[in-house]
């Protein structure tokens, strides 16, 4: 049987973190009472016009720069038409002709063979980033045969990030999305929490034999977590391979991921191919961005988005942060990944290091092996840890000063998890875990042991 190559591309919608929506002043807020955050424009009242939100533009530029894109100094807005209950105007304002950013790349890392010890870096090309409106939400109430429409989300700003089909499996897709998520969160351009719908991922999957042209692709939607993304992609790859090996064909269709069953199912056919009748948005002039060179001297800086200024203000991206951690604390690259992957863990680690004499490359072991595994076992976040960085540092100091052994330290830690408010020193004293430093005392104990085990001693002396 010839081998198969899978090709995976991603369309990611990230909700922009901003106070108000992309084209209107209504608020952006998760889980507000239905239809309480709807401006006249969001409700498509006749005669209302879009006004571009500056913060959303800056978020898109930031993201584009972080993803090594070319920022288009002139980009355009378009209308994409279709009828649906959650789209009040009958069209979505998007950027189809000329998006705000193009031709970037994202580097992400994978562990080979599931071991954290070997990491490999991969790159996926970013085709483009475009600004567009989010739709409202519609809920189908079948018992009462009605559809309920909530427009709170209608008009919220989205960045659509299109990743080229450079990935080959679920793991790669998941790692790429995870890295994107971290970048967005670091920039603050999106909170990117998938569970709150701030990051939505659709996967485009196809398979082919090496050397052959790409196969027919399907689009997989309804993926609600990074874990499910990997599952959905891998399932779909398998499904396509099996289908083709059985002599079947792949339809260019949209499928939904069913997380309960762990499979993809065809979505209801929307009357074949949609023609969105794209048309330029006549109410928005072209979006012009400037840099230091092109900025006219007399222009009001409030009215203008300066790409260079945004670039200067970019925070350290995750990859840079990781490199700095490795350098500063002499930890391994894979350690840095884990630190960044867990919210608050880097800060915790750095705080412990600050408060202890133990070398950072020894501290990391305690953080990743002991602290983290405990938190995972009990489904706690770093913030919720009953052991503070102060307490852990305290404990590690005792170890460093050789007042207790490593084994004893683990025992103390186990006690500390109980969160009873005792200090490490108090627990040590309580459980008599002190390391005995006195030579004479040690000799006495040893003698006692030898005296109490005559037979064993004779056996040992005889060899």
């Amino acid at each position, binding site marked *: 049987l010839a081998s198969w190559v899978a090709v995976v591309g991603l369309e990611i919608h990230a909700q922009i973190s901003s106070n108000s929506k992309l084209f209107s002043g209504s608020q952006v807020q998760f889980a507000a009472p239905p239809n309480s955050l709807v401006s*006249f424009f969001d*409700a*498509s*009242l*006749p*005669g*209302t*016009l*879009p*006004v*571009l939100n500056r913060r959303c533009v800056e978020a898109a530029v930031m993201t584009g720069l972080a993803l090594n894109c070319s920022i288009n100094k002139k980009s355009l807005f378009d*209308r994409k*038409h279709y*009828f*649906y*209950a959650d789209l*009040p*105007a*009958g*069209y979505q304002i998007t950027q189809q002709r000329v998006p705000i950013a193009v031709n970037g790349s994202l580097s992400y890392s994978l562990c080979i063979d599931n071991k954290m010890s070997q990491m490999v870096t991969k790159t996926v090309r970013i085709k483009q980033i475009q600004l567009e409106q989010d739709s409202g939400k519609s809920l189908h109430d079948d018992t009462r045969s009605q*559809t309920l*429409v909530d427009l709170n989300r209608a008009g919220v700003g989205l960045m659509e990030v299109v990743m080229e089909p450079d990935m080959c499996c679920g793991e790669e897709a998941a790692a790429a999305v995870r890295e994107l998520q971290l970048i967005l969160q670091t920039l603050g351009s999106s909170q990117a929490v998938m569970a709150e719908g701030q990051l939505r991922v659709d996967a485009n999957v196809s398979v082919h034999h090496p050397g052959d042209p790409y196969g027919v692709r399907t689009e997989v939607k309804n993926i609600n977590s990074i874990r499910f993304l990997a599952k959905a992609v891998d399932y779909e790859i398998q499904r396509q391979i099996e289908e083709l090996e059985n002599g079947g064909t792949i339809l260019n269709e949209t499928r939904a991921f069913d997380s309960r069953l762990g499979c993809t199912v065809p979505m209801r056919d929307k009357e074949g191919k949609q*023609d969105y*009748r*794209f*048309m330029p948005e*006549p*109410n*928005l*002039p072209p979006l012009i961005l400037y840099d230091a060179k092109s900025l006219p001297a007399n222009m009001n800086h409030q*009215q203008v988005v300066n790409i260079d200024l945004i670039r200067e203000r970019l925070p350290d991206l995750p990859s840079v942060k990781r490199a700095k951690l490795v350098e500063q604390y002499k930890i391994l690259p894979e350690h840095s990944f884990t630190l960044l992957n867990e919210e608050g863990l880097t800060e915790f680690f750095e705080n412990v290091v600050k408060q202890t004499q133990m070398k950072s490359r020894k501290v990391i072991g305690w953080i990743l092996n002991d602290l983290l595994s405990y938190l995972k076992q009990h489904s706690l976040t770093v913030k919720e840890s009953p052991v503070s960085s102060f307490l852990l540092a305290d404990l590690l100091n005792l170890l460093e000063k050789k007042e207790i052994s490593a084994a004893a330290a683990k025992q103390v830690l186990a006690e500390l998890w109980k969160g009873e408010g005792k200090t490490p020193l108090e627990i040590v004293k309580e459980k008599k875990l002190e390391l005995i430093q006195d030579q004479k005392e040690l000799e006495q104990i040893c003698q006692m042991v030898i005296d109490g085990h005559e037979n064993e001693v004779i056996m040992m002396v005889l060899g």
Partner: protein
Amino acid sequence: GCLEKGMRLQVSAALKEGQVTPTQLCQRCLALIRSTKFLNAYITVAEESALKQAEESEKRYRRGQPLGVLDGIPISVKDNFNTTGIETTCASNMLKGYISPYNATVVQKLLDQGAVLLGKTNLDEFAMGSGSTDGVFGPVRNPWSYSRQYKEKSVSKSLSEDEESNWVITGGSSGGSAAAVSSFTCFAALGSDTGGSTRNPAAHCGVVGLKPTYGLISRHGLIPLVNSMDVPGILTRCVDDAAVVLGSVAGHDPKDSTTIQDNFKPFELPDLTDVSKLSIGIPKEYHAPGLSSEILALWSNAADLFKNAGAKVIEVSLPHTRYSIVCYHVLCTAEVASNMARFDGLEYGHRSDMNESTESMYAATRREGFNDVVRGRILSGNYFLLKQNYENYFIKAQKVRRLIASDFVKVFRSGVDILLTPTTLSDAVPYMEFIKEDNRTRSTQDDILTQAANMAGLPAINVPTALSERGLPIGLQFIGRSFQEKQLLTVAKWFEKQVKFPMIQLEEVKRLDHGVFQHQKSASFS
């Protein structure tokens, strides 16, 4: 010749001096609206709120603190502008009973100046049409149908002919506003202009109709027909008044991203005496097929008028004029199809009882809510926007539009200041004759002289010039450079002074004629 200095009364001055009160003025207008109801110029008359506004204005005058020239002046607004508390219907079943929660920016600006909003005027449904005959509230009748001037001329016709069947159209689509100003029920009215919808009815009703430069006046709250061509239009009885209204409503609006940022300074029009430095262009393509010999002669006389006064008058060419109709058709219907997509019955407006599914509800709502004209344009527009057609129709039309706009740029760059053209092909036709052709045919014919200005975004104005052989108004159009409204209006004002267009002789107006009511008949309020 009612524009002689002696007869010209200044209502604003009269209000200031207490010769007439805002309440009196308002009541007169309301009474006149009632007695001219047969014109069907108004869809909604907001009597209560108007009187309240008049009362407030009166208080201000008593305190000696009027807000400005417009304080207490009765105005009306075309029913495609959003107004709080007053229905906004667009003369469509789709929006019957719709009360908007916000005022259009231009409406708000006028109200902030103390203007008294009498009501919303009639139009073609969703501003689609050139007759003001295709709205759900019925057609608007041209007040000149009932003028002595027209009746005198129609004596030659068969005496058995009913006055009823003889009435002529206002033109459109802002026919209600034009009729309202023409019949003295208000001093100024807002219309809209996408392909000539303010200038066309202005010409037929013998009033001044100004189409401003695109981007000068906010469209926020104007229910759009073609977003890239629509402008709010101003209808008044004289050019000075148009300048005053323009000054109150023009300027950047942060709510409308297509308005220019530059500061707009309201201006007063100088009394031009010397036109020798003016260069007037006569575009030969505007001698269009179907142009009546009467209007052709009038246009020629007007050119001579300028020449004899010392202006330079030259023939120019706008070679792409003949493509403007088809180009307009494609771009207009495409935008219409897009703009009308929001009318689904879900959030506002008419919603069908059909509720088997969302789709069937949408389809039934739109079938019930829109008339044939609207639906026809939506279907055409969607056709042009289909992926396979987009390049050949929409993109092509965009390119032709640029060519049309360049024609004007070239001409203005060559030293021409203002263009002089006819506004309409003929005087107003009787309704019975007008409806013999369908809306699309009529629009195609009637828009030819006006819509190139919309394509190019240029300012243009209709100035009533003379009466036709049938006793009906004929107007001529001036087209100016972008954002040069001051120059355009100055020239228009000079021309207006030369031609001394006669005042309409209406029975209803005469009946209410007494001392105080002189103000009503005054051509101007400023």
